[in-house]
């Protein structure tokens, strides 16, 4: 809180701009969960200051409420971090920028890769994974403390990133994974605590544009944002304490995008080494070290008569077969997104995706109204289909219809 206050006072010495939004989403679940409805609320406020021609600062505070974990298990508890309510730094950094050189330090969101919406290469910045609606994926990021520099030479750039402290994603509700097991126990999840400068993260990216093609190659060493789980203690019928742990991972990748006629073709190829994934055994859960290869190819169209299309083919593959794993070894996903602008104020969005191996599918629909410059409202729903015996069908618990309200402000 003191940090916020200090930065607020510092920024007020200079002429600053303020803005932000607050949003509320009310969900009605269509499956039998602990709660029949859920809520997600967000409040963000920022201050931006041009300190001089070369220095710029941004201070952002965020408040978030997400009931999802509790909706799936009313006996859910967390230690070290609250999955339900959080007050945290949004993008809060100081930037130095002069011709061809940028240095930026603070809490930042760093995104690599060429795909968007469904982006395997967006692995550096943690997320709230309870935001399952794909269109909200970009809003689910949580900035990490880091120092980055970028050198620009012609159409080429070199980026270096250093992270002094690891931060992690908010995981899916664990009740989703266990299905009928551990139904009677109070579930307590212990989040891993990290300290400043005890462990270090870092990586680099090189990007260039050659004859109409954007190319980038990158590598990053870090603590996996997604946890693997270990049972700390289990008293059948009473309590289960689970620890979320995070493996040290090295990721390397390559991305491209290019224009093909009126379309844009994008691709991301990524390898994560030394990840850990879980499998469920008769006596509990085990974790296994694996490498994971991810590929995504997408094609998007310009807007034709108000319609735009986005087709995605993606594959994620583990190098090891793990029995009763929380995920299948190979996931092949096909997806189609259609956006229709009915008027400049009304927009419809249809997203369909299919796990081609598991025969599970999902449908996300949203119709949004832009009431004025400040207010958007939306109605929609997310629906998942598949056999209950299938691990991917865990998402069926998320089936819901929703209404959403978002209000932007600036002063």
């Amino acid at each position, binding site marked *: 809180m003191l940090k916020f206050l200090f930065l607020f006072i510092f920024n007020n010495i200079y002429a600053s701009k303020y*803005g932000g*939004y607050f949003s509320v989403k009310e969900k009605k679940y269509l499956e039998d969960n602990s709660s029949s409805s859920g809520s997600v609320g967000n409040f963000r406020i920022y201050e931006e200051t041009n300190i001089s021609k070369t220095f710029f600062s941004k201070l952002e505070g965020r408040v978030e409420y997400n009931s999802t974990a509790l909706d799936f298990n009313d006996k859910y508890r967390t230690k070290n971090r609250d999955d339900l309510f959080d007050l945290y730094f949004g993008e809060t950094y100081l*930037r130095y*920028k002069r*011709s*061809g050189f*940028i240095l*930026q330090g603070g809490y930042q*969101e*760093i*995104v*690599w*890769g*060429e795909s*968007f919406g469904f982006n395997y290469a967006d692995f550096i910045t943690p997320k709230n994974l309870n935001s399952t609606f794909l269109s909200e994926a*970009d*809003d689910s*990021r949580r900035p990490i403390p880091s120092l980055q520099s*970028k050198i*620009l030479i*012609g*159409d080429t*750039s070199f*980026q270096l990133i250093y992270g002094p402290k690891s931060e992690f994603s908010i995981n899916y509700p664990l009740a989703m994974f266990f299905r009928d097991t551990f139904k009677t126990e109070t579930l307590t999840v212990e989040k891993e605590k990290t300290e400043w400068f005890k462990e270090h993260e870092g990586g680099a990216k090189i*990007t260039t*544009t050659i004859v*109409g093609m*954007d190319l980038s190659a990158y590598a990053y060493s870090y603590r996996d944002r997604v946890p693997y789980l270990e049972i700390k203690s289990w008293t059948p019928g009473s309590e289960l304490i689970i620890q979320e742990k995070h493996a040290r991972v090295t990721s390397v990748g390559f991305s491209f*995008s*290019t*224009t093909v006629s*009126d*379309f*844009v073709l*994008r691709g991301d190829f990524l390898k994560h080494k030394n990840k850990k994934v879980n499998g469920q055994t008769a006596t509990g859960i085990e974790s296994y070290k694996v490498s994971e290869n991810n590929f995504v190819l997408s094609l*998007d*169209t*310009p*807007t034709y008569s108000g319609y735009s299309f986005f087709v995605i083919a993606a594959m994620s593959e583990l190098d090891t077969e793990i029995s009763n794993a929380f995920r299948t070894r190979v996931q092949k996903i096909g997806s189609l997104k259609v956006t229709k602008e009915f008027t*400049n104020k009304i927009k419809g969005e249809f997203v369909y995706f299919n796990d081609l191996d598991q025969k599970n599918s999902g449908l996300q629909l949203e119709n949004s109204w832009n009431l*004025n*410059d*400040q207010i*958007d409202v939306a109605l929609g729903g997310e629906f998942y289909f598949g056999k209950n015996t299938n691990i991917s069908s865990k998402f069926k618990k998320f089936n819901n219809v929703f209404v959403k309200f978002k209000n*932007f*402000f*600036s002063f």
Partner: protein
Amino acid sequence: MKNFLKPLIIGSIFAFSFNALAEMSALEMVKKADLKRGLGNIPHTFNVEVTNKNSDRKEVYKVSFKDINNTLSEQTEPEKNKGRKMLMKDYDIWLFTPNIKKAIRISLEQKLTGEVSNGDISKTNYAEDYDAKVLETKDTPQGKIIKLELLAKNKKVTYGKIEYYLSAKDYAPLEAVFFAISGKPLKRARFTDFKPVLGETRASKMIIQDYIEKEKESVLVFKDYKKEKLDENIFNKESLEF
């Protein structure tokens, strides 16, 4: 044989020279008209305010124009679209939005998206992008008007064809009809509110109307022109997020 060739060669030279002169003069007219809409093909910045008819909605863009191959527009209002940037560089276009957090390549066709296309906001030079020829000159109650036909030199240009109407008196732009590459008429624009800007009288307002749905109308107000030496690194897509 020599007697047969001589008049042919002389005739061809005359015909070529006449055509070249006619084309050049049409192009000169467009160049003069360009200077009555913007500062021409020199590095400069300006702001554009866009309002739609029957709506209180206002969008504001800051445009950095280095030359016809390098333009950057950044939306500064309203709050929900603030920080959106579009970089046009030769045949490449990138869009940066604050939520996606990176510059993404988009199709050249996207420069036409929106009732007011991205090209309307950031491309004010027609002379560099289009070949021009005079179609006709006619007298009207407002004075003599020249009708020109502008044909796109390449695909990076916003429109396939423009019918452009200029005042014969000072080549001030009056009206334009924009066509897609396919030849379909898209919209009509009127240029108004001529004001002195940096030593030249220039149109500060462009009123764009959909060709079919005439009730769809947007007003673009161009202002705050500044000749400025622009750092070439702001036209690198990797700098859009900063």
